[in-house]
């Protein structure tokens, strides 16, 4: 699954930490709720990447994230606009290996 937020690049720099906190909190909560245990997960600002072996849970996770973003009270959180995610899902074979770059950091 690849997800990014439409309009993220238009955010003022001072709003980005707040937005990231919200997005990460939302994704963490949804992961737990859906019982999705990803093989790999990574983020870069608004770009989220998740690899999982259970496509049903992943599909459910994607739709619930979409729904939460749609229902979020953006104005109350101090944002002047609403945000929506673009989410893509695909199934296929992939190689799993040790990521030495990220691994070294931990």
């Amino acid at each position, binding site marked *: 699954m690849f997800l990014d937020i439409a309009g993220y690049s238009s955010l003022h720099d001072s709003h980005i930490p707040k937005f990231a906190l919200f997005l990460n909190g939302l994704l963490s909560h949804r992961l737990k709720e859906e019982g999705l245990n990803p093989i790999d997960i990574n983020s870069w600002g608004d770009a989220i990447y998740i690899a999982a072996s259970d496509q049903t849970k992943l599909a459910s996770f994607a739709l619930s994230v979409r729904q939460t973003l749609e229902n979020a009270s953006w104005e109350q959180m101090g944002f002047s606009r609403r945000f929506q995610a673009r989410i893509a899902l695909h199934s296929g074979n992939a*190689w799993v290996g040790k990521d030495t770059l990220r691994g070294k950091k931990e």
Partner: protein
Amino acid sequence: MGWQGHTQRKKGIIGTSVIHTARIEPVVNPGEVWVTDDFKNLLKDSRFAFDEIGVVSLAKQYGNGRLYRLRWEHESARKSFIASHSKTFNAMWLDSDASTIAEYAKKNSFFELSTQIDLWLYTGETFIFNCRQSLKSRDTALQMRLLIRRPEMDDKKLSMIKATIAAVQEIVEVNSKIDIQIRYYSGEPSIRMELFQDDTRGKLLIGAYRHRPMRSVEFVGAEDNKMIVLDYLESAHTYVKDIVKGRFEYMWNKCTPFRACLFDLDGVLVDSMSFHYAAWKEAIIRFGGNADALDFCSDVYSREGQKEEITARDFCDKYLIGKTPPISEIIKAKNEEYDRLFHRLSVFSGCYELLTRLKSRRILLALVTGSPERVATGIVNKWFPGIFDCIITGSDVERGKPDPQPYLTAASRLNLTPRECLVIENAPLGTDAGVKAGMQVVAVLMNSPLNEQCLMKAGASQVCKNIVFLNEYLEANFR
């Protein structure tokens, strides 16, 4: 914050499936989840449903893929773009003189439903005239931006644009809810969007294609220069909308109204190029050189704007082979001859009127010439007294054209940014200098032996045949 509890972060997943997914995500409609055939086929759960989107061009020219919109089974199927947006449509970005789009938009009441409309039209008249009555009587607010291309191109175009502007004024006078802004530009459109009706299949298609000078038309998201037929309108629209919107914003921002006009002198305001040629020829003859080979176009006109020291040095190397006169002596000889011919100089007809008209509109005027101060001052005092707010001559700068220094110095003295300055040039070196200074350059041919392509190649955004066309261009851009 974070999701450490759910990850095995030292693992990495790689493969074409990962790349494939990454190429889908940028083309997904915001607020939607799109899946591939492979994902759909594996998802055997009755809680989920799919709407077929069709074959979509993936990002980064990754190819095409058949995609489906994922939704909960209890959610209603999303309608086609036209159906789903017809009630909430609030903006449209269009580029074209294609009346097909105008008619289609009218038929589907896009104008009535939109609150913002950006029109990137060849003439602008199609939309304005088609919807004049509905705009006049509209009772909800509308912001419209109209980007008009090449107003100075020809008389017919100009009269159409003038009529369009008159219609716009008429609309805004009777309906205060309508706000229409107009800007002008002269560059070639790089992207066009068109809407196609395929009667045989009963489907509507929107396509974008990229215009590239000297190249064939290239369709965005196409292979082998053939447009991909998209089964659903929304996927095509989504794909091209961002491109066209981005391009529109780029052009709109680029068309910042100018606050100053920076004029070159020789060949633009003063019909002096043939006298410069005669004077250089005489100087070469005086020092025993072969002046017959001195070419008006390639030697004199193409060097116009260059500092005299550099031109003299070049001519010395080329036409005074074996002679070694001091460069200062060659320049002195050239200027003596030029001074002798000075009484025969004339200004181009209509120049003075053009300058005074601009001045009356509070447009700042600068003269930027490679000629020495003595010559430039002589011309200004004789024909243009009190006209220029700033005069930059070859004596004022270390580096002459094609270096941007002369134009940047003028902008600095006028306390303006380069984007606020429009340069009027006649020669490639001067055009190059203006472009390097970050300014838009309009070239004017007057009686130049150079052709339009030569000046366009140097970076001119527009080439006007003569002062009449230059006047029309400036009239449009300094409204």
